[in-house]
């Protein structure tokens, strides 16, 4: 039969297939599940629409989204509208407990703790997002290319990842921070350079599964180049796992940043991140416990929200937990 169809017509059908396959694939699964659940004619639904519906039913994930949104808005807007700044010291009002003037109290130098937490949130969340972005820009293309080319080149690329995986990277990051100053750009580049390895492994596994599907054959038979197939046809189909692991990478990056800050290697005063605030608070917690508890609670709740959201997305997008 295919021979009866003119080559050009076949090519057109293939290209339609290749373009629409991504949606088709999910529309099929969506209608299948909808039909099996309530046997009604499925309404128009898409992968992302379905995932959003499932996510909205997950209370913990919704809590995560709402909390993260509040924190993000507070961290961006808060420092502008607050009457205090993170750097203005007021030595006569140090170590004040929470009051109506200073909602979360003040620290040693009389800084308002709330505004310092909000400002620290900008740094912590900023580092988390930027370093994750670094990890994405290295890990996704690396994993996608390795998974797509396969064979010896894939083996060599993944062997390199394995070797790097076994290196004590936390130690290298510590050394970098000690030697080359507590430079915030260096910080997230260094962390991102550690975190891309896992991302590369996950993306590779997903790409290897997707590349065997028919619509990739279709794209290939149209003579599309390798780069086009990887970035236009395969990667959109592995967005789900990428989004899930991105959400889960952000908290681990924030943990690493706070870990470094706790060792005295984070951002420098008068700037603060949640890690440095926790460190400062832990030093004086005996007399002034609120200086430890508020930043610690803020940091933990944010990580908790990100983890809830990541778990919820994983369930909603139905991503298997296997890494390779």
């Amino acid at each position, binding site marked *: 039969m295919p021979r009866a169809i003119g080559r050009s017509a076949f090519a057109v059908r293939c290209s339609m297939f290749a373009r629409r396959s991504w949606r088709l694939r999910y529309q099929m699964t969506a209608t299948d599940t909808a039909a099996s659940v309530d046997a009604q004619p499925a309404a128009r639904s898409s992968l992302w629409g379905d995932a959003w519906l499932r996510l909205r039913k997950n209370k913990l994930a919704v809590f995560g989204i709402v909390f993260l949104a509040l924190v993000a808005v507070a961290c961006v807007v808060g420092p502008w509208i607050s009457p205090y700044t993170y750097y203005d010291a007021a030595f006569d009002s140090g170590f004040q407990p929470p009051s109506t003037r200073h909602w979360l109290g003040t620290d040693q130098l009389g800084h308002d703790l709330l505004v310092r937490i909000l400002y620290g949130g900008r740094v912590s969340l900023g580092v988390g997002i930027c370093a994750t972005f670094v990890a994405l820009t290295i890990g996704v293309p690396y994993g996608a290319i390795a998974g797509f080319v396969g064979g010896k080149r894939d083996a060599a690329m993944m062997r390199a990842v394995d*070797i790097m995986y*076994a*290196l*004590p990277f*936390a*130690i*290298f990051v*510590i*050394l*970098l921070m*000690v*030697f*080359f100053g507590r430079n915030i750009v260096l910080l997230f580049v260094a962390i991102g350079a550690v975190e891309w390895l896992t991302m590369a492994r996950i993306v590779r596994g997903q790409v290897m599964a997707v590349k065997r599907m028919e619509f990739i054959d279709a794209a290939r038979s149209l003579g599309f180049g390798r780069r086009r197939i990887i970035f236009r046809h395969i990667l959109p189909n592995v967005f789900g796992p990428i989004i899930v692991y991105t959400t889960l990478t952000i*908290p681990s990056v924030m*943990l690493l940043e*706070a*870990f470094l800050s*706790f*060792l005295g290697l984070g951002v420098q005063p008068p700037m603060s991140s949640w*890690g440095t605030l*926790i*460190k400062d*608070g*832990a030093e004086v*917690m*005996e007399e002034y*416990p609120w200086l*430890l*508890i508020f930043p*610690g609670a803020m*940091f*933990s709740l944010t*990580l*908790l929200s990100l*983890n*809830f959201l990541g778990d919820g997305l994983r369930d909603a997008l139905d991503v298997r*937990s296997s890494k390779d």
Partner: protein
Amino acid sequence: MFRFITSRLLQSAFALFVVVSATFFMLRAAPGGPFTQEKAVTLEILRNLEAHYGLNQPLWKQYVSYLGSLIHGDLGPSFKYANRTVNEIVGEKFPVSAELGAEALAIALVLGVGLGVVAAIRRNSWADYIASTFGMLGISVPTFVIGPLAVLAFAIHFRWFNASGWYGPIDRVLPAITLGIAYAAPISRLTRGGMLEVLHQDFIRTARAKGASESRIVLRHALRGGLLPVVAYLGPAIAGILTGSFVIETIFQIPGIGREFVNSAFNRDYTLVLGTVILYAALIMGLNLAADIAQAWMNPKVRLE
């Protein structure tokens, strides 16, 4: 199997060489030196010190001579602790960290596997919810928040423990639990997932049909497969426990190798930094290899190549 182990050992030796070289040259590229912070050092004394430690020689010569002594297991003299070798310092400090790590790991395994198994058997019961809450909190509340809070509550408020120090067995309790909990959480999540997958398989139904008791099914049949994800996680987990002890050692003022490492980096104690980096790298690679072998031993489907 034998080929796998030899090839991995060779690979690790190469990786170790890369680690040593990278650290060596990074140390030298970094601003400052071991004697720059010293107050009132005249130029002459500085020259003498540098000559004493061989720092006045060309860099490649220092590198070659360091590698030469490293092959003989000699990590060189410390630059900051006068008249002490790095081998001595590591030999004194490392057992402390190793003990803390081993205790934390034991707590993490017992607590994590126990909770995970119970959660999987009694799925969607209150025990399951407690286990998942614990798992979520454990991965979201970092050790440097739990640690100080534990000190605040149990050492300062209730006075059950000392707030810091490393003398009697009682001083082990808080640090080991704090560090252990952080790893018990992911272990319990992995155990639960692995057990749930195994408990649905045919051989479990067969065992049940043959009248095996529930405890025998869990302990003899399911656990072996259900713990595979945990074993795979142990390599990175042990690495994390080792580096995580930096924070614990700082919080509880424990004289371990982690604190020594951070201090030595600040002090530019070149040989001590290198010595601890080599120790950590070798440990992490060795433990990863051990985890891989254990995984193959537990799961015939995994082939080592």
